[in-house]
């Protein structure tokens, strides 16, 4: 039977989120951002599961999403411990810092020369120079035009 339009839209949204997470986990090198992208993929899966659950009219998808939440919490805890350990050893959150773990027949990742950081130097606001405080009419301060 043909799914309802809303179910199809939900499936498309889930597919887009999953693909975005896949791109992120393939391309990004920061370990924490990689895990964020993995969580994004899980979100896409959750949306798809709920859409199918609505299509079939049963609770299986909902229950499965609850377990996805549970496993995601466990995974985040353990993974972040590993990330912290990796950071303590190398001082970097770079996945390429661990490329000695690659297969022996694969080439080594070499970063090409990066252009200088184009971030502007920090600008702090200038405080107005302090001086002698001008005399103020106290009565005029208390006056208001109307209440």
């Amino acid at each position, binding site marked *: *039977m*043909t799914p309802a*339009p*809303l*179910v*199809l*839209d*939900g499936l498309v*949204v889930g*597919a*887009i*989120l*999953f*693909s*975005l*997470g*896949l*791109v992120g986990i*393939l*391309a990004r*090198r*920061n370990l*924490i*951002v990689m895990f964020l*992208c993995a*969580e*994004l993929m899980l*979100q896409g899966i*959750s949306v798809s599961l*709920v859409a199918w*659950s*609505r*299509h*079939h*009219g*049963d*609770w299986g998808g*909902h*229950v499965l*999403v*609850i377990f996805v*939440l*549970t496993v995601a*919490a*466990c995974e*985040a*805890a*353990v993974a*972040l*411990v590993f990330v*912290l*350990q990796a*950071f*303590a050893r190398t001082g970097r*959150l770079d996945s390429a810092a661990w490329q000695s773990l690659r297969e022996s027949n694969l080439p080594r990742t070499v*970063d*090409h020369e*990066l252009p200088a*950081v184009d*971030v502007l130097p920090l600008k702090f606001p200038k405080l107005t120079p302090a001086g002698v405080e001008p005399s103020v009419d106290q009565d005029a301060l208390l006056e208001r035009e109307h209440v």
Partner: protein
Amino acid sequence: MIASVLPTISPGTLLAGGVTATAASLWLLLPRGQSGAAERTSRWLGTLLGLAALACFVATGHRLGGLGEEAVFLIVSLVAVISGAATVVTRSPVYSAIWFAMALAGVAGVLLVLGAQFLGVATIVVYAGAILVMFLFVLMLAAPAGLAPYDRVSNEPLLSAVAGAVLLGILSLSIGRLTAEPPLCCRMPSKTAAIAGNAAADPVPAASEAGVDLLIENHVARLGGELFGRHLLAVEVAGVLLLVALIGSIAIVSRAASADGTVAPARRAVP
């Protein structure tokens, strides 16, 4: 006269007009440092616009039935997708995490529209409230000042972008094929018709009828009954998994800290 004119306008136009008029009237009514005649004029205009907005909302109210769900779904899914893309492409990891929180809000909205009320709230509470804060803690602990070089360069950006786009295309194709009629070879009678042995029975059950079950009033109670009834064993296993993850992460941290030598070694039990 107004009552005869208003129903001829489509509800979407009315709603858009009402929203615009509300915003404009509030802006006109708020103090903006004016005085005298200009202030009085803007007050009058704001009051009139506010009344018009109220009229629009009242005229729209009972006719929004079909429009609301689609429009809300469009908005929240746009939020989710745009924030998800920003999560992936943002250079700074902290901003990436914040965008991910925004994507979570969008996903929670999508889940709510799709009829998963409990899951929408749980996504906000568990993900944005707990998991994301943990990510941010680690980022604050570990991220260097400024943009690190590994945040500014990607690992094979072209290949991974192409891979993701191709995957998205394939998924969209297969989703689009769901709407097409199945070929004759694969068309099978539905289960109920097969059981009844009645070939003349309608093989297509109504899709809307199936979805109604999830939108009942005691939604959370039904979900809890399903979770702790049919899936009780899985709930127990999930509890064990949480416990194992807790113990495991503590064990990894303490052992690595003692082996590293940078932190004082863990105190051993005296025999």
